[in-house]
């Protein structure tokens, strides 16, 4: 395994060949913002919050999809990146209904945290506010499309870790929706194993456990790391 030395925000850091800039940065204490990344499943580079500047490259690169190279000079927090990230968050807040005061995830939501962390305190564009369904047909969980940011964490965890591939996306563009099986109510899904992994990885209040009221939902994402590590290291073999 060859070691790569690079600079992130002026700090000399090392990573292993094949590791992403995102991982190396977090391991060395540089917290790059993110919404679609979740440790333990593959990355898609869709939220664009983790974009970084790499010296010598014209384009901004998604750090979760770009591997470290020897001698790379990476900047993760320039004025330009900050302003882009704030505007992306504004777009998200305007896309659906993200009124925190009436959300089960209030206080625990990653989208809310991001807004706070990046200093996005108001939205300057028109709220699209589509009227979307809330699916409470599952006996233990609920899905509120109005809170969904289409990060596809649930799709990936269901496919890659649980192996059920209950979730996928339907439609395209701003009309995309998360669907279970052929779009039937979640409770009627044939493939869902009710494992709840999707609920745990969902960054917002889109997927939640029933019976929680405003601000009561807690999610645990560490479980994913245990499962994935255990699987990789064959810790389950008798």
């Amino acid at each position, binding site marked *: 395994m060859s070691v790569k030395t690079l600079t992130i925000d002026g700090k000399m850091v090392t990573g292993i060949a094949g590791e992403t800039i995102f991982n190396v940065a977090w391991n060395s204490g540089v917290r790059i913002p993110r919404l679609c990344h979740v440790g333990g499943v593959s990355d898609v580079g869709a939220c664009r919050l983790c974009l970084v500047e790499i010296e010598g490259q014209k384009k901004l690169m998604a750090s979760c999809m770009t591997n470290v190279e020897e001698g790379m000079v990476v900047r993760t927090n320039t004025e330009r990146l900050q302003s882009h990230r704030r505007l992306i968050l504004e777009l998200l807040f305007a896309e659906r209904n993200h009124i925190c005061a009436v959300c089960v995830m209030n206080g625990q939501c990653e989208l809310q945290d991001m807004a706070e962390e990046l200093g996005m305190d108001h939205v300057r564009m028109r709220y699209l506010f589509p009227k979307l369904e809330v699916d409470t047909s599952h006996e233990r969980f609920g899905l509120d499309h109005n809170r969904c940011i289409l990060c596809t964490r649930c799709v990936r965890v269901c496919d890659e870790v649980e192996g059920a591939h*209950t979730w*996928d996306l*339907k*439609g395209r563009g701003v009309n995309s929706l998360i*669907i279970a*099986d*052929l779009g039937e109510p979640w409770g009627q899904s044939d493939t869902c194993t009710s494992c709840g992994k999707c609920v745990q990885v969902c960054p917002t209040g889109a997927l939640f456990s029933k019976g929680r009221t405003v601000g009561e939902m807690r999610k645990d994402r560490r479980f994913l790391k245990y499962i994935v590590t255990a699987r990789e290291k064959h810790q389950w073999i008798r």
Partner: protein
Amino acid sequence: MATTTPSKPSKAADTARDNRAKLLERAMSRHSYSGDALIEVLHTAQELYGFLTPDLLKSIARKLRLPPSRVLGVATFYHFFSLEPKGEHSYIVCLGTACYVKGALGLLETLERRCAKAGRTSPDGKVSVNSARCIGACGLAPAVIRDGEIVGRLTPRQVTEDLDRIGVK
């Protein structure tokens, strides 16, 4: 785009229906039931049945060993696939730049006002309205594909008259 409208139950129709299932099966076996051929198979299914029903999608998912949600995801990603029955008549308005410059939006607006939004069928099942990116008949702009035939240099008035003729209220 051949559309087969479900006809009244008769012996001939029954055999036609059997045939459709057989033809779809053949298309899937030609691609050795590979999930990679999903789009090809959906094309064939739509050609045979006119539109894609949940049952059809479910059986395709099973045969190609794909998650149902992935099949619906693909079927709804592409505009070519239709999940609802088509109307008796179909109007596809070209919205290529050439047609736009020559007033295609006026044609679409007329159709949407009288029949249905683009991509939908009027409630009485009479007319399906669609838009296309460019049908390549820029010389005839603004152009419409009416029941499979390209009609060029149309005006909203002609469209109105046409709709009156086929009895759209």
